[in-house]
């Protein structure tokens, strides 16, 4: 018998079962929950998805971007553009938003990758600013003041009719339910996809590049290509999520869609508090963030200042976040990606590290 490499742990097996149960429960939720809860969950799921993509980029890919808001906005504007120019059903236009963000991401990557480290970070911010300023010149989608989704297009979205009859609710509430289900699907696909990728050879290569690009290159990993793949994947995913977020809002403007605070500061906070470089981290982070947001967002600047301060303190004293603390104490991994070598007994060789 050969030695095998596995990533499964007992906790992960339980997690898989629990996750499936939670997803089933979530799908059924609109039958009992009121509209406010659905909207809150939509917010949680979409922010979680954004956080997972930022985490993929920075935590696993080592590419710290403070410009992901560019792709949130691009995805959203792609959706609005398709809906306004072609009267396209927004639900069907969602992938277009992602694709639009992806297409623009290619030249931006070209520029951004000419910079390294901290300067790459600011470079992504410059790119986001250029995108924002350029989109603000796009008169067809309202220029600097923004625009709304055409009324008919919104109310006739795929699925709303079904939901309206299923639950006996009005169009606006039905739109929220449809958006919620889409957000759920996106979150599940994102987390599942990232988890599977990290468990694959590509994920191992990514970790190698992040830890030591030179060494990774020396064993044949194409570091440059990995960075491109991760950057573009994150751009597409972020764009898709942005499109969905603004599909639900129904109204867009450049300052909102490209907001650093909403789409980068909060996202970074979620990942940092929860635990960067882990899949579990952003899940904890969004819960903490949602509680804080619900309780204190009314305090405006004081609240934001506190968030910033908490973020700084966490980075200083608990850089691996809440999940890092838990994981260190208990060794728990719900989404294990660390590979362990199992050497069958009696094979005559010394056990590995």
């Amino acid at each position: 018998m050969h030695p095998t490499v596995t990533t499964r742990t007992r906790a992960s097996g339980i997690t898989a079962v629990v996750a499936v149960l939670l997803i089933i429960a979530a799908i059924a939720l609109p039958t009992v929950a009121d509209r406010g809860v659905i909207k809150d969950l939509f917010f949680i799921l979409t922010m979680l998805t954004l956080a997972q993509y930022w985490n993929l980029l920075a935590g696993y890919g080592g590419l710290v971007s403070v410009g992901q808001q560019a792709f949130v906005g691009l995805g959203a504007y792609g959706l609005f553009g398709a809906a306004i120019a072609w009267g396209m059903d927004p639900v069907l236009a969602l992938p277009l938003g992602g694709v639009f963000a992806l297409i623009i991401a290619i030249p931006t990557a070209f520029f951004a990758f000419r910079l390294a480290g901290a300067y790459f970070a600011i470079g992504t911010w410059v790119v986001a600013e250029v995108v924002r300023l350029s989109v603000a010149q796009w008169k067809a989608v309202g220029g600097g003041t923004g625009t709304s989704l055409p009324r008919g297009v919104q109310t006739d979205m795929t699925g709303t009719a079904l939901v309206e009859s299923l639950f006996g609710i009005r169009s606006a509430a039905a739109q929220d339910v449809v958006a919620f289900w889409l957000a759920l699907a996106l979150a599940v696909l994102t987390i599942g996809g990232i988890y599977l990728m990290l468990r694959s050879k590509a994920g191992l290569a990514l970790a190698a590049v992040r830890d030591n690009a030179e060494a990774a290159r020396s064993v044949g990993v194409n570091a440059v290509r990995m960075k491109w793949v991760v950057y573009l994947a994150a751009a597409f995913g972020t764009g898709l999520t942005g499109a969905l977020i603004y599909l639900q809002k129904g109204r867009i403007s450049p300052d909102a869609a490209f907001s650093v605070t909403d789409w980068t500061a909060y996202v970074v906070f979620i990942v940092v508090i929860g635990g960067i470089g882990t899949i579990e981290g952003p899940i904890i982070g969004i819960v903490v963030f949602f509680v804080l947001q619900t309780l204190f967002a009314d305090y405006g600047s004081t609240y934001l200042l506190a968030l910033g301060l908490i973020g700084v303190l966490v980075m200083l004293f608990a850089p691996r976040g809440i999940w890092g603390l838990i994981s260190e104490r208990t060794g728990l991994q719900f989404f294990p990606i660390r590979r362990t070598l199992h050497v069958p007994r009696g094979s005559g060789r010394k056990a590995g590290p």
Partner: protein
Amino acid sequence: MSLDTIVQGILLGGLYTLFAAGLSLVFGIMRLVNLAHGDLIVMGAYLILLLVGALGLNPFLAALIAAPLMFALGWALQRLVLNRVLGPDILPPLLVTFGLSIVVQNGLLMGFTADSQRISAGALETASVDLGPVTLGIMPLLTFGSAIAVILVLNWIFYRTALGRAFRATSDDPVTASLMGIRPKAIFAQATGLAMVIVTIAALYLGMRANFDPTIGPARLIYAFEAVIIGGLGSLWGTLAGGIIIGVAQTLGAAVNPEWQILAGHIAFLAVLLVRPRGLFPRAFD
């Protein structure tokens, strides 16, 4: 595209150079990019405003008093916070300074509200000198002159003093520098303190030149950063060149269409990045 536009752009470049010089200094010595840099400039402007209001001083004197206060602040920031996160991993310093940026912005919002402010400079604001083909504002001239002076002084410090030797040695090799009796953490604190003095000067001219409010910090950071990249890491005169290029690009863009001013600057930056990723005057090694 008149001579006047270009000259205005060059003078504007002086302001951007002042924004950038502190950033360049700190990155050169400790490879740290402080994402709160722009917000600290704005904070300096508010500090000067406070001193002017409280003590009835003219802005230049207020800046003179603010400078050592800002030095101490930078020194403490480095000592207590940033020295803890410096290391091979770039993530912690980025995230800490990003958090800091949010703290400073919102702290200023809480303390001073979102109202636009301006540091009054009296007659100086509109004074100008007529040089025939162009008329130059005294304020932009002073700004540009200050930028040149700052760079001259920084170069003097770096290349003619023991402190400057220590800065350069620590930048090259902190471990071997410690074998020479240098304490890198102390050097870093002094460097950040010095950078804050330059920030104070930048804040003075920022505040006198136009209205400011707590949220304009990130845009200043971006201009500063662009100037440093265009100039090339490690070159102070390069930073001046970078500042001028951004300034001229912006004024030329504004002359075509006022809405295009900022975008024009970004495009100039991207263009340089495309053909000269290491900048115009990069250090030979890094």
